[in-house]
C-alpha cells in the first residue's frame, strides 16, 4: 500500500512538473533566415538590404525590367515598334501585341501583381524607416527618398497602363483589400507631390559610381515627365534645363557606346543580379538564325529610318530566313561573360527630347530645335531647319522618340498617349480600338475586391 501511495504521488508530481514546464517546451528560436522587422531597421546596412531587395525586383520583374515582364517589350509591341513571334503564348503577351487582350489575360494580371508587390515592399520600407530610432537622420532620409521614388515610378506606370487605380500607402491589408480606385489625374498629382518632397532628400552625387542606384537627378527626370503629362510646361522646362546643364551628364557621341555601362549619359541603370550574366534585353531579343523567338522590329519601325541613320545600322541587325529579313533589336549585345552592359532605365537623351517637346508645346521653336538637332546630329541625320511649323516639329519629335527609344520602357507609347495621338496606331495595328488606351483591370481582382468596379470601358 505504502509503495503504491508513493508511486501514485510521484506519478502525479511528475505529470504536474511536466505540465508547468510545458510552456518552455514549445518555445522555438527564430529561424536563421528571418529577422524581426524592428531589427531590419536598426542599422543602415540591414535597411539598405531591404532596399536592395526592391532594386533587384526592379531589375528582374518590374515594369522597368528589360525582359518579358517589362513594358519595354510589352508596350513596344502593343504600339507599333515591335512584332511578336511567340507562338506558345496563349491569353498572354501575344494578345497584347495583337491588341485583343481580355480581362483574364495572364500578362495583364502579372504586371498588376508584380507592381503591387513592389509597392508593398516600398511602403513597408517607408514605414519601417520612419519609425526607426537608431539610424542616422541623413540615412533615414535617403532610404525613404529612394523607396518613395521607386514606389512613384511604379504608380506612374500603373496609371498609364490601367487608368484609374487604387493608391495605397499603407501595409495594412485590412485597408488595402477594400481600396477603391483613384482617378489617374489624382494619382499623378499625388506622386508629383511625393517626388517634390523627396527630391531635396536625395544627393546629386551617386552613391555608386556605376550609377546603379537613383540620385536626385533621376527623381527629377521622373518628376519632369509627370509635369509633361500634366502639361505643366513651365515647371517641366525649368527642371529639364537644370538636369541637362548638370556637369554629371554629357551626350554620348558614339552610337555604338550608348548601351555600354560606362558613360556619362546614363542617369540610372540596373545591374544584372548575378555577376557576368547578360542583360535581360540581350536574352529576350537575341536570335542568330531562323525566325525570331519572341520579338523583332516591325516593318513600321524599319520604315521610319533613313538609310544613313547610324542608329539603324548599329541597333537593328538583319537576320535572313527563308529570303525574308528579320531585324533583331540589337541595342544590348553581350550574351556571355557580361561585364560591360547594364540595363539602362534613364539616359540623358530622353531629357533632351522631353525638353524639345515642352519647348515645342510652348511654341519656342528655335530653342526646341537646339535640343532635337543634337540628337539628330549624333545619329548622322540632317538638322531640322528653323522654318518648321509647330505641328511639323511636334511630329518630328514624335518620330524621333521612336527612332531613339524603340523597345525602351514604352516611351513611344507614353508620347502618343499624352498627345492623344494613340489613334494613329489604327494605321499600323488592324485591331486597335480607342478604348485600348488603357488595359483592362485583371478580372480576378474585381472578383476579390468589388470596390474596384467598374471595369475599364470596352472590356
Amino acid at each position, binding site marked *: 500500500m505504502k509503495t503504491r501511495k508513493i508511486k501514485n504521488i510521484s*506519478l502525479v508530481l511528475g505529470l504536474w512538473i511536466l*505540465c508547468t514546464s*510545458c*510552456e518552455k*517546451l*514549445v*518555445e*522555438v*528560436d*527564430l*529561424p536563421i*533566415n528571418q*529577422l*524581426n522587422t524592428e531589427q531590419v531597421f536598426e542599422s543602415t546596412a*540591414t535597411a539598405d*538590404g*531591404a532596399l*536592395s*531587395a526592391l*532594386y*533587384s525586383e526592379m531589375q528582374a520583374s518590374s515594369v522597368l525590367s528589360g525582359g518579358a515582364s517589362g513594358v519595354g517589350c510589352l508596350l513596344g509591341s502593343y504600339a507599333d515598334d515591335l512584332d511578336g513571334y511567340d*507562338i506558345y503564348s*496563349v*491569353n498572354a503577351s501575344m*494578345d497584347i501585341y495583337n491588341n485583343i487582350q*481580355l480581362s483574364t489575360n495572364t500578362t495583364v494580371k502579372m504586371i*498588376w*501583381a508584380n507592381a*503591387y*508587390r513592389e509597392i*508593398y515592399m516600398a*511602403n*513597408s520600407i517607408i514605414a519601417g524607416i520612419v519609425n526607426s530610432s537608431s539610424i542616422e537622420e541623413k540615412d533615414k532620409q535617403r532610404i525613404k527618398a529612394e523607396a518613395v521614388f521607386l514606389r512613384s515610378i511604379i504608380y506612374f506606370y500603373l496609371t498609364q497602363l490601367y487608368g484609374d487605380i487604387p493608391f495605397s500607402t499603407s*501595409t495594412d*491589408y485590412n485597408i*488595402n*483589400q*477594400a481600396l477603391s480606385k483613384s482617378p489617374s489625374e489624382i494619382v499623378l498629382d499625388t506622386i508629383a507631390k511625393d517626388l517634390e518632397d523627396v527630391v531635396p532628400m536625395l544627393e546629386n552625387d551617386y552613391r555608386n559610381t556605376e550609377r546603379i542606384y537613383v540620385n536626385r537627378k533621376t527623381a527629377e527626370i521622373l518628376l519632369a515627365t509627370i509635369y509633361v503629362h500634366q502639361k505643366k510646361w513651365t515647371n517641366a522646362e525649368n527642371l529639364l534645363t537644370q538636369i541637362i546643364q548638370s556637369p554629371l551628364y554629357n551626350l554620348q557621341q558614339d552610337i555604338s557606346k550608348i548601351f555600354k555601362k560606362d558613360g556619362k549619359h546614363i542617369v540610372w541603370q540596373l*545591374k544584372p*543580379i*548575378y*555577376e*557576368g550574366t547578360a542583360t535581360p534585353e540581350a*536574352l529576350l531579343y537575341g*536570335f542568330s*538564325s*531562323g*525566325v525570331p*523567338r519572341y520579338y523583332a522590329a516591325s516593318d513600321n519601325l524599319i520604315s521610319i529610318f533613313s538609310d544613313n541613320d547610324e542608329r539603324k545600322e548599329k541597333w537593328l541587325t538583319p537576320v535572313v*530566313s*527563308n529570303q*525574308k529579313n528579320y531585324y533583331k533589336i540589337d541595342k544590348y549585345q553581350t550574351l*556571355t*561573360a557580361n561585364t560591360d552592359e547594364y540595363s539602362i532605365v534613364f539616359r540623358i537623351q530622353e531629357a533632351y527630347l522631353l525638353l524639345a517637346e515642352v519647348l515645342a508645346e510652348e511654341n519656342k521653336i528655335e530653342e526646341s530645335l537646339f535640343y532635337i538637332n543634337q540628337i539628330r546630329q549624333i545619329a548622322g541625320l540632317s538638322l531640322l531647319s528653323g522654318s518648321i511649323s509647330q505641328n511639323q516639329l511636334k511630329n518630328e519629335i514624335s518620330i524621333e522618340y521612336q527612332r531613339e527609344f524603340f523597345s525602351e520602357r514604352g516611351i513611344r507609347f507614353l508620347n502618343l498617349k499624352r498627345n492623344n495621338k494613340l489613334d494613329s496606331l489604327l494605321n499600323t495595328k488592324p485591331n486597335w480600338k480607342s478604348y485600348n488606351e488603357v488595359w483592362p483591370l485583371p478580372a480576378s*481582382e*474585381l*472578383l*476579390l*475586391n468589388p470596390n474596384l468596379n467598374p*471595369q475599364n470601358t470596352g472590356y
Partner: protein
Amino acid sequence: MAGAERAKSNKLNHIKSMKKNFCNLSHFQLAFGFTLIVSGVAIAQTRTVSGTVTQNQKPLSNVSVSQEGSSDVAITNSSGKYQIQVSGENPVLIFRHTDYSEERIEIGSQSTINIAMGNRENQIEEVVLNAGYYKVKERENTGSIAKVTAKDIENQPVNNVLSAIQGRMAGVNIVGSNGNNSGGFDIQIRGRNSLRTITNSIINGNEPLYIIDGIPIGGQMITSYMGNFEPTRNVNPLSSINPNDIESIEILKDADATAIYGSRGANGVILVTTKKGNSKDIKLSLNTSLSLSTVASKMKMMSTPQYLEMREQAYANDGITAIPDNAYDINGKWNKDRYTDWQKTLIGNTAENNLIQLSVSGGGNKDSFLVSGSHNEQGTVYQGNFREKTNSLNANYNFESTNKKFSLSFANYLASRSNDLMNSDFTRRALSLSPNAPELYDGYGNTNWEDNTFTNPIASLNGTYSAKTLQLNQNINVGYSFLNNWKLKINGGVSYWDLEEYMLSPNTMYNPAFPAGASSAKSTSVRNDTSFFSYTIEPQLSWSKSVNKNTFEVLAGASYQETISKSLAVRGTGFSSNALLNNIMAASVINMENLNETDYRYAAIFGRINWQYNNKYILNLTGRRDGSSRFGPNNRFSNFGALGGAWIISKEHFFDNIHWLDLVKLRGSYGITGSDMIGDYQYLDTYSITSTPYNGISGFIPSRLYNPDFTWERTKKAEAALELSAFKNRVNIVAAWYRNRSSNQLVGMQLPLITGFSSVQANWNATVQNSGWEFELRGTLFHNSDWNWSSGFNISFPVNKLVDFPGLDGSPYASIYVVGQPTTILKLLEYEGIDSVTGQYKFKDANNDGKISILEDAQTVENIGVKFFGGWQHEIRYQNFAFSFLLQFVKQKQTNYFRDMTIPGGMTNQPEAFTNVWSADNPDGIIMPYSTGSDQNANMLTTFLKYSTAAVSDASFIRLKNIQLNYSFPLQGKFFSGAKVFIQGQNLITWTNYFGLDPEFLVTGYIPPLKTYSFGFQLTF
C-alpha cells in the same frame, strides 16, 4: 530438425574422410545417397498420434486432421476420434472444420491430443485493432477504425501502399496526383475539413497524421523543384516504404479514435505497422516480381488532315488571307503530310519494374525477430533511360520475459531511394503539339529544331532531375508490468528523412540559335538538400482492473516531439562544359538560393478511461492537452477530447433465442480535435533573406502579412454506427453516420493582389461541415472444404456544406462560396448551346443587362465533388488457387477538357471530338466555327465557354483496380515449406464517359494513372 542436421554433419565428416578413397564418386550418386540418409532420418521418426475432438463437450465429427506440411489427412468419426501418422521432430497438427476456427497444435512428443474446437464468435473477438496508444478488440471498439492487412496489400505492383488501399476503406477517398512512380496523393478522410490545399497554400492543410510503428512523421517534405512533374509538390511519407513490408494499415476516422491525438487528429490518423517476426521456426522467404506498365488513358486527338482542315477554316473565318510567317504548321514550313501520335511517342513507353525481396524471421519462446530487405527498380513511360531504384531494410526484434512482465521491442526501417527523372512532364505537350509537327531527330540523330520553328520536346530530356532519399525510422518500445494491474510503457523513436536533389538544366535543352541554348555558359545546375530530423518520447502508464462485472482500463501519458528541418539550395550558372554540371563548384557564378533551419516543438499530455460493464456496455473517454510552437505566444495551448460508447445489444437477454445473429452493436462518439498544419513561424512579423542580391548586397523582403492572433482550428466530430454480424460470422455489416464541423478555420485568406500578397494566415469565422454515410458489407458467399468465396463491399456518401459564414458578402470570398452549398462549388455562366443563327456560343444573361460578363452573370452553381465512392472486392479460393479482384467506383462531377482548352483553330492540337464544328449544314456541332485566336470576340466567347456549365460534366468511373490470381504449391519437402506464383493486374479497365484525359487525376498536364501487369513468385523456406 536437429536430428537431420546431426545426421547431415555426420555424413559430411564421413564423406571428408572418405574423400581420399572415393573422390571419383559422381555427384549424382552423392546426392542420391544424401537424400536417402535424410529421408531415412525422417522416416525413422514416424509415429502414430490419436485423440478426440469435441465442441461444447460433444464429440465433433468431420473434422479434418493433418500434419502441417504433409498432405495426409485423417477425418474424425462420429465419436470424434481420429488417428494419424506424424513424422519428423516438432510436428504440428492442424484441425479444420467448416463451422469453427482452425486450430493449430504443436504436439511435441505427445501421442494423444484431445482438443475442443471453439465457435466463430471467438474469431471476431480476436481481431485486434491498433488504435495508436492502445489496442482494442474489434468487438469492444467504440470508435471508427478501418483496417487493411497485408493479405490485401501484398504483392500488388504499386509503389506506395496508398495505391493498394484505394477503394477498400469506407470514408477514405484516396486520389493520386499523377502516374509517376513517386507520385503524390490527396487523401480525404471523411471529406476536406480545411480550405488550405496545395493549390492555394504552401502547406496542405488536409494532410492526415502519419504514424509509422508508433512514431509520427515529422512534417511534409516539400520541394519547389519537383513542381514540374509533381503537382502536390511534396513527397508522400509512405513512398519509400515497400508495401510488402507492411503488416497492416489502420485509419482512425472519428473523434473517439482521433481525439487522443488531439490537435493533429482533425484530418484523420494513418497508422502503419510494419511486419514483425512471430514464428517459432526460422523462416526464410524470397519474393520477386516483374511488372510492365503503360499509360492507362489516352485522349483521342485529331489526325493531320482533320487538324489542317481546322486551321484552314480558322484563317478563313477570321478573314485572314495571308497566312502569317509564324503559322509554320500550315504555311508550308512544316511538312503537311507528317503524322505523329505524340501521346505514343512522348509518353507511350512501357515501364518495367523489378522487385526482389528477401526476409528472415524467427524466434523462440521469449523473443522473435524479422529482417527483410528489398530492392526495387522502376522505369518510366517516357523515352530515355530514366529510372528509380529503391532499397529497403526492415529489421525488428521483440522480446518478452518469461514472467511476461517485461517487454521490449525495436523496430527499424531504413529506405533509400534514388530517382533519375526528367525535368518536366510531357503530358501537356503530348496533347497540344500539332500532329504534323516535325520529326524529333534529324538525319544525323541530332535534335531537330527545324530551322528554329520547332521547340523540340525531346530537348527537354537533356534536363534531368535526380533525387536521393534516405529515410530512417527507428522505434523502441519498452513495457514493464508491475503490481498486477499496472503497466509502464515508454515509446520513443527517431525519424530521419533526407532528400538530396539535383536539377540539371544544360543549355542543350534549348535551341542553340537562341541565347539560352547557345553554349554551356548558359547551363544551370541546382542542388537542394532538405532534411528532417524528428524525435518523439511518449511515456505512458496504464492500469486495468476488473471488479464484479466492471472492467476498467485507464491510460495516462505524455508526448514530446521535436522536428528540426534544414534546407540548403545552391545554384550554379555558367559551366565550361556540360559534363561538369554535377559539381556546382565548377560554375562561374555560384549563388546560394536558400539556407534555412526551422524548429517545431510539440508537447502534450493525454489520457483515456475505458469502462466496460458486463461485457455489454462500454464507455470510452479520451482527452488531450496540446501545445505547439506553430502558434503565437498567446495561443499555444488547447484542450481536446472525446466520449465514445458502445452497446452490445446481442448480449441482452431478448437476443438469447435469436441464434442467427452473432453480434449486434450500436456505437457512437462525440469529440473535438484540432489541426496545426499551418507551417512554422507564421505568426512572426519578419523579413526573410532573399537569394537575389543586388550589387552583391543580399536583400530582405517582408515574409508575410502580419497576423499574430491566429489560433487552433477546431473540428467537432459526431458519429453513430451499427455493427452486425450474422450466420456464424458469415455476414458482417457496418453502417455509420458521421458529422464533422470545422470552425475557426485557419486559412490563407484570399486577398486581392493590391495588398502585396495573395493571402494572409487568419482564422476564418466560417463553419464547414462534412457529413455522410458509410456502409460496409463483408460476407462469405460460399464455403466448403475445397471452395471459399468471400466478398466485401464498401460505399461512402460524403456531403460537404458551408454551414455558416457571417460577413461572406463583404469578403473576398463573396463570389466563390454560397452559404448552404458545398465549398467545392463553382459559380459558372449558364451555357445555352450554340445559337442557330449566329453560330456563336450562347450564355444566359443572369442579370438581364444585355451583355455577358463573368463578374455579373456567373450565377449558376455547380457542385464539383464526389457524390459517392467505394469498392467491391471478391476473393475466391479453390484448393491452392486464390483469385481476387477489386472494382473501384466513384460517382462525381468534375471539370472536363473544356475547362483548359485553347481556342480550336489556333496552333494547338485539339480532341477529335472538336471536329464536330457548327456550321449551317451541321447545326448540332459542339464547337463554334474555328478561329485562330486573333479575333477578340471569338476569344472572349471561348473564355466564357471555359467558365460556363459546359466545362463541368460527369466524371464518374468504374475501374478494375486490382485483379490477381495466385497458386500455392502444396509442398511437403523439408527444404521448401511454401511456394506461391502470382499474376496481378492494376488499373486494367476503366469504364467512364468522361471527356478528358482521365477522370481520376484532375490536375491536367501530368501523367495519367498507369495500367500494370505483373507476375512473380514467392518461396518460403
